[in-house]
């Protein structure tokens, strides 16, 4: 994993050094298909695939985090609108921005605009990290400001610096909804030239972009015009690719084979941001309160087979609850045995738990909108070991209500994403700070678990990481399943899509 990241970083650096000279490799128009149709192009908006791929292109941010876990102190952040960031103390940072930032309508950006942007975003609440960490900001000069955080959590300042779009206050407050959504005053390297609501966005490289040297990766202008088209149906995206209507699209794993043999297309594989894992309900309401039952289930199925139940084997099996993406992941885990499929061992645990084959029934809570194939594969495998699996599939909204109800399920399948550290992923699932008296996402109340977690957070030494990892595996509280591999298919003249943190940076793609 680290090698891949290093390569990516090198590529990033290579690109920044190429800079404006990359006009040679610039393409004129690239059409990209995405599957999200409820996007917004204003500076602040709800999460979605389109915003993930375009926000940094249209709107400038103070900094950019080029890979998962990039830290400010290590100098790993790219400076975009900020000239420099100085730490005053754990919760206070001074920022100096460039003095020549201009948006696409000619308005100059000052520190006051930056302060306005942060305050506005905190008020609107679209980016939860800003809501959680941002306390206040004030301008100390025309181009200098101070940011105050609520606490000094690791990763907080990075999120703060990178997640808030900057826009001109006077323009935003004076613009109508229509103007914000169809022709905003963009501060990033591209300006929005056309928007068809829920259908397409056209972005054109700004000739007058204020920064001319040391461009960050997200500031590249390798493409003159990027057109984003929303095609919600996966099969229609494949058809659009084949038809030549789009040049790049994310294609479902089951459809990729059509493009694999074809020289006219390039395929870029990358890990899905979300990794799947299984939670056991360890409260007294469930049969899974018994460790033997949990282990019986754990050894009775195989993650790869489950993945294949979804129609393709494009995925990476997990060896910990969290995926192997962050810098604090212990690589040795990938070589150890992690709940392999072993029907004999499963049978033993089942007997230890006191159930004869066929007696035990467990309910698994899943989302109805997800493909049901993997769960059916799991059901078949469990049946072989004499465990009856009842699949309770609910629509997303309903499922979310049931998730908090310890009487509603025995196992739940869920997914989460990693933004910087494995420990943060673990915190999301296990930290009692998040779940109060319930203990963990699986209603587990275990003081030792919490101690080990806190220790790992404080010091990400291999020893602490191992301790927590082993403890969770020993008690089989949760099991990591797999991370799907997604594919982006492009026409052959696009050689690289410049994936950063699992999203392509569209303006930085390179051509043949």
């Amino acid at each position, binding site marked *: 994993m680290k090698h891949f990241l290093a390569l990516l970083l090198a590529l990033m650096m290579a690109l920044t050094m190429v800079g404006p000279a990359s006009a040679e490799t610039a393409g004129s128009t690239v059409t990209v298909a995405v599957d999200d*149709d*409820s996007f*917004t192009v*204003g500076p*602040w*908006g*709800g*999460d979605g695939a389109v915003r993930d791929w375009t926000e940094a292109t249209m709107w400038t941010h103070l900094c950019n985090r080029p890979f998962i876990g990039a830290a400010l102190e290590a100098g790993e952040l790219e400076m975009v609108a900020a000239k420099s960031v100085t730490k005053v103390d754990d919760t206070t940072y001074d920022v100096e921005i460039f003095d020549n930032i201009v948006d696409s309508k000619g308005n100059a950006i000052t520190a006051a605009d930056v302060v306005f942007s942060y305050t506005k975003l905190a*008020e*609107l*609440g*679209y980016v*939860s990290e800003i*809501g*959680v960490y941002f306390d206040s900001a004030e301008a100390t000069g025309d181009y200098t400001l101070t940011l105050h955080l609520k606490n000094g959590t690791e990763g907080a300042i990075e999120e703060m610096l990178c997640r808030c779009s900057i826009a001109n206050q006077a323009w935003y407050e004076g613009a109508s*909804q*229509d103007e914000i*959504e169809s022709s905003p005053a963009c501060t990033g390297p591209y300006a929005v030239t056309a928007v*068809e*609501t*829920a*259908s*397409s966005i056209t972005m054109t490289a700004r000739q007058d972009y204020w920064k001319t040297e040391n461009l960050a990766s997200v500031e590249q202008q390798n493409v003159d015009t990027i057109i984003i*088209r*929303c*095609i*919600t*149906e996966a*099969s*229609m995206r494949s*058809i*659009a690719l*084949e*038809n030549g*209507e789009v040049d790049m699209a994310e294609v479902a794993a089951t459809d990729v084979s059509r493009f694999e043999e074809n020289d006219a297309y390039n395929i870029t594989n990358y890990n899905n941001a*979300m990794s799947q894992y299984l939670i056991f309900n360890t409260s007294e309401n469930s049969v899974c309160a018994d460790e033997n039952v949990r282990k019986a289930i754990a050894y009775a199925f195989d993650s790869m087979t489950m993945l294949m139940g979804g129609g393709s084997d494009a995925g990476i099996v997990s060896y910990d609850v969290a995926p192997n993406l962050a810098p604090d992941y212990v690589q040795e885990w990938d070589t150890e045995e992690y709940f392999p499929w072993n029907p004999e061992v499963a049978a033993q645990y089942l007997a230890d738990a006191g159930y004869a084959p066929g007696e035990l029934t467990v309910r698994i809570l899943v989302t109805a*909108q997800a493909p049901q194939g993997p769960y059916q594969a799991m059901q078949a495998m469990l049946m072989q070991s004499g465990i009856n699996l009842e699949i309770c599939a609910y*629509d*997303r*909204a*309903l499922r*979310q*209500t*049931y998730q908090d109800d310890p009487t509603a399920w025995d196992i739940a399948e*869920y*997914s*989460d*994403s990693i933004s910087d550290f494995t420990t943060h992923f673990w915190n*999301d*699932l296990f930290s009692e*700070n*998040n*779940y*109060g008296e319930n203990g963990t*996402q699986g209603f587990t109340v275990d003081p030792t678990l919490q101690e080990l977690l806190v220790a790992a957070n404080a010091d990400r030494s291999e020893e602490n990481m191992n301790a927590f990892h082993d403890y969770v595996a020993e008690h089989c509280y949760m099991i990591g399943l797999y991370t799907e591999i997604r594919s982006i298919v492009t026409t052959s003249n696009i050689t690289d899509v410049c994936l950063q943190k699992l999203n392509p940076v569209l303006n930085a793609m390179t051509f043949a």
Partner: protein
Amino acid sequence: MVKYVIKRLLIMIPLLLAVGIIMFTLMNFVPGDPAQLALGSGVHTQEEIELKREAMGLNRPFVVRLGEYVGNIFLHFDFGTSLTSGTEIKYELMTRFPYTFYIAVFSIILTIVVGLPLGIYTAVHANSFGDKVSLFTTLLFDCMPSFWTALLLVLLFSLKLGWLPSSGASGWKHFILPVIANSLGGLAGFTRQVRASMLEVIRSDYITTARSKGLKENTVVYNHALPNALIPILTVIGMRFGSMLGGATIVEVVFSIPGIGQYLVNAINGRDYNACTGGIIFIAFTFSVIMLLTDLLYAWVDPRIKAQYASSSKRKKVAANA
């Protein structure tokens, strides 16, 4: 007549009010938390969720939210902002409605242009070979699920032949396949309705009178029979058009046309209370207007109905004076 129209328009107000209140209430008591849904998949801490709820204004009591929302719609025509995306709902609806409208209008036109002559032909030549072929073909299309038809059309016309684009909404070419896919299913029902109405009318005495005057058969069918057969046909057209205006969701999803259907489905799945309620009130409004127009069309086609509308207000006057 004018009084009739005004009366109908006035009745729409309590109707829409009731729809709005019921929708909002139902959505609120259906399980699912819009804040959590807006945060997306992945694990979210209670703190995050609470912050989001506050940002969305969801931590206020239900009655307050209901009053505020309904009041805004009816007093200021302000549909509020979407809970998930923060955009103005009125803006979203207004930008998406034209697409749904185009599809609906052209689908209805296609249905009428194909179905009306076909229905008349099969009525005039009832039980002939042509009648049976027509029945078979229309039923065939009726039985095929519309997304399957849509995909087939795309595979043929877009992929294989390359004549038409496969998705999107940025030009008239993009609407051909969606309109066809949308109309095919309803064609069977419509043709049968036309056929049945015409059959009933064509055996009437006044048709014999018309023939005995020496009129051309075409004149008899189109000038005498058809206007009398129109009432049930107009009803079908009205209802179909009204429901299409609510969004032909399947067609919109397959062809990625940003219409109201898609918007509403996403809003419901995301438990976006405001967008749902606003969207449904909007659809109820358009549907009521279409129903009113259909009723007015009845009056234009059949003078007896026109007399009925006009007399219902006269009768009250007479009773009051008596």
